[in-house]
């Protein structure tokens, strides 16, 4: 520090942060982050499941009453289950420590197994002498995750093309508002879906116009757009929708569609294949975005513009146009997510009904490292965590409900700090491209 003339990029940072600062040329440095994180979770698991263990039997119901193939309920003795789970957790932690010692990376599947085990242990602990309906839990999780997934897909596309999309919240809200209104007037939920996409695109147009044409800081435009959409929808809601609720704010909802055969698969069927049309569109959207981004010319160009617009420009890609239309596409996808609030779940528009879902979607984008599949998984995790609280509060959990509600957010912080670490977005994301 005293001699700033010597260039020392790594010297100024702490020892634990040095992993991120050294380039790939350096020798592989051991990162103890994962084993430490696992050890902390194992300790927490030990405290909860063994020290504060509960006696009784936990029942997990695997089938719904309408299933063709009925699976028997799984009954676990609560305390022994906890002990076994903690023992397995300890094994995995030790294993990951050994892996790091021998300079290998801890594979993702090991962490996933760890998480699932911890979850099973926790569920068993929380449901002592009660029954947890597993399909219901997962079904609700997916429902809660749908708007997040649409929002995250919009965020991924937008950021991959180089425009930071903080306006997901606004796109969701605009989609929810217009779909409710259009579907109420026309009594056609499908037209509501189209309207939601148009609304999302309109929000995107403003974002794109200001970010690409006027070079305004993209985060600023995004934040302000959220406020603007919240204001416009709130204003129109009070002035138009609330006084004329019967004609303007009572949209027909999509019916659940059971897909033949697939919906009869135990556990998976009731969760994934007895959903509404929007959810099926979501499956297609995730697959299309993933395939498109990484296996088509469109995706290659999109990513090139987001990573190195100058290079893309040099080879003849119109950077501004690519960004403009892809941000619009992102808006359309996020708008669909908004329609889910009104046409899929709640049924009528309410002020601020998205309640921060757009920000959670943004977190899912970063958590998923700008990858559509990973972002979808992150969104599912958020949905699961919120629904877990709902289910546990119904069966009467020993933990105060506030702490259950807090859990997903705490887990995210831990996960982002301990497992994801320094995440790097598309290189040119957030930077306007000024053609010289």
């Amino acid at each position: 520090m005293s001699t700033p003339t010597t260039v020392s990029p790594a010297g100024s940072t702490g020892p634990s942060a040095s992993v991120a600062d050294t380039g790939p040329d350096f020798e592989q440095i051991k990162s103890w982050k994962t084993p430490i994180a696992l050890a902390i979770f194992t300790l927490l698991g030990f405290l909860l499941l063994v020290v504060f263990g509960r006696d009784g039997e936990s029942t997990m119901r695997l089938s719904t009453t309408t299933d063709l193939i009925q699976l028997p309920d799984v009954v676990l003795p609560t305390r022994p289950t906890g002990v076994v789970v903690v023992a397995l957790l300890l094994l995995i932690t030790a294993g990951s420590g050994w892996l790091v010692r021998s300079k290998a990376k801890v594979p993702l599947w090991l962490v996933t197994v760890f998480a699932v085990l911890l979850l099973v242990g926790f569920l068993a602990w929380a449901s002592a002498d009660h029954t947890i309906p597993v399909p219901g839990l997962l079904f609700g999780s997916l429902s809660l995750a749908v708007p997040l997934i649409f929002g995250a897909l919009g965020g991924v596309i937008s950021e991959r093309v180089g425009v930071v999309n903080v306006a997901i919240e606004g796109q969701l809200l605009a989609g929810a508002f217009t779909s409710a209104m259009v579907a109420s007037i026309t009594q056609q939920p499908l037209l509501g879906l189209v309207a939601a996409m148009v609304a999302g695109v309109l929000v995107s147009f403003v974002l794109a116009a200001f970010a690409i044409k006027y070079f305004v800081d993209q985060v600023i435009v995004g934040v302000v757009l959220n406020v603007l959409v919240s204001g416009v929808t709130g204003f129109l809601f009070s002035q138009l929708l609330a006084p004329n609720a019967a004609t303007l704010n009572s949209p027909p909802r999509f019916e659940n569609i059971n897909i033949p055969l697939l919906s009869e698969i135990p556990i998976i069927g009731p969760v994934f294949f007895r959903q509404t049309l929007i959810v099926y569109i979501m499956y297609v959207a995730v697959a299309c975005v993933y395939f498109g981004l990484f296996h088509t010319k469109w995706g290659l160009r999109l990513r090139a513009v987001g990573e190195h617009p100058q290079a893309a420009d040099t080879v003849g890609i119109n950077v501004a146009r690519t960004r403009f239309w892809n941000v619009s596409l992102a808006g359309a996808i996020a708008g669909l997510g908004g329609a889910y609030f009104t046409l899929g779940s709640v049924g009528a528009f309410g002020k601020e009904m998205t309640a921060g879902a757009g920000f959670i979607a943004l977190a899912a984008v970063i958590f998923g490292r700008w990858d559509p599949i990973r972002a979808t998984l992150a969104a599912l995790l958020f949905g699961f965590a919120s629904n877990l609280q709902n289910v546990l509060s119904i069966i009467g959990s020993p933990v105060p409900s506030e702490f259950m509600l807090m859990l997903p957010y705490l887990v995210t912080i831990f996960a982002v700090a301990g497992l994801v670490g320094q995440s790097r977005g598309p290189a040119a994301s957030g930077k306007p491209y000024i053609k010289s």
Partner: protein
Amino acid sequence: MSETLQTPPVSSGKPAQPGQPDQPDQPGRVYQIFREITTGNAIISVLAVLLALLVGAILIAFTNEDVQKASVYFFSRPGDTVVAAWNSVSGAYSALFQGSVYNFRKPDFASGIKPLTETLTFATPLIAAGLGVALGFRVGLFNIGGRGQMLIAAALGGWVAFALDLPAGIHLVVALVVGVAGGALWGGLVGLLKARTGAHEVITTIMLNYVAYYLVSYLLRDGFLKTPGSNNPQSPASKPTAVFPDLLGPTYNLHLGFILVIIATIFTWWLLSRSNLGFQFRAVGLNPHAARVAGISVDRMYVYAMLLSGGLVGLAGINQVLGTSTSGFDAGIDSGIGFDAITVALLGRSRPWGVFAAGILFGAFKAGGFSMQAAEGVPIDIVLIVQSLIVLFIAAPPLVRAIFRLPTPGQKTPGAKTPRKRTTTPTEVVAS
């Protein structure tokens, strides 16, 4: 250390700023003055406010019932529609003005000026939180965690205010310090996580908002913030020894918090533009890589910046508990100020005095918005629309110039070709 740092981080990387309004040589002095006014920032700000109010007026007129009734027979008597529109808009905006600056219907000056003091009261937490967010922006950090930081500050400071028995004066100071420290720690945690593990501050601040909300909800329901013998999730009232004294007597709500906010603004200005630490902050904000090369510990700056940012936002939280709602608080004590602060910081262009002015403007909108809703039935959401449009327009000077046909700065003669060519791409159709 500061001397050796002076050169590299700030000047590196950034190309020379284009478009400085310099030497329009041939034309006369009057023209020069005209150009300076029309191409300056001030005129853009004023026009942006006007434009935003205009859009608001259109929305008010279109959704007004009288206007809708009159518009049915628009082609036979168009005058009725115009009159109805004028009445709805002028009624709403005069209510906005009378609710935020001066109420002409009151008999004397003392009661007529009350709305202005209300404006300042509403502006107080907005300025404090806006300063915190702006400080983060200057270091390249996006602090969306205002809500959480305010809640923690309010909870800790509020606890000191209602639970401890201390002499007057000391009690106030202790509550203030504890609250600000609470906000600072909640924010500093984000900085620490970013510095130590690289966790993105946007994720962690959003997540900590929820954690703080549920934590405070729990404490209010079943913890040390609970009012004994009450089922409401609300804290007991602050003790009188810990309440901010009124500045202008009991008739006005304006309290000591406003003075504290002025001090905070001066402090932030001094910190950012006069202190060694502020220099390092700005260097990191402009280019963290260059700052690191120059020997600035970027990680440490992130921690310090988030501590200070959280502390300033915490001041907004403690201001709510000790000044505005002293009769006990619930988990909604932040009332959205943590998010409003982002717009305030943006409007103020992350400059301390800019934030101060923006905070007062938004305070006026807030104070006037309530009376507008009460008097004219115009939903307060119109205020959100106008606020966000102002920020949007101010952020895009070329748009405002294009709408009002103002000359572009940096252009030599009035007839010269504009640097940006006009082509009709879809982008433009939407933007105009």
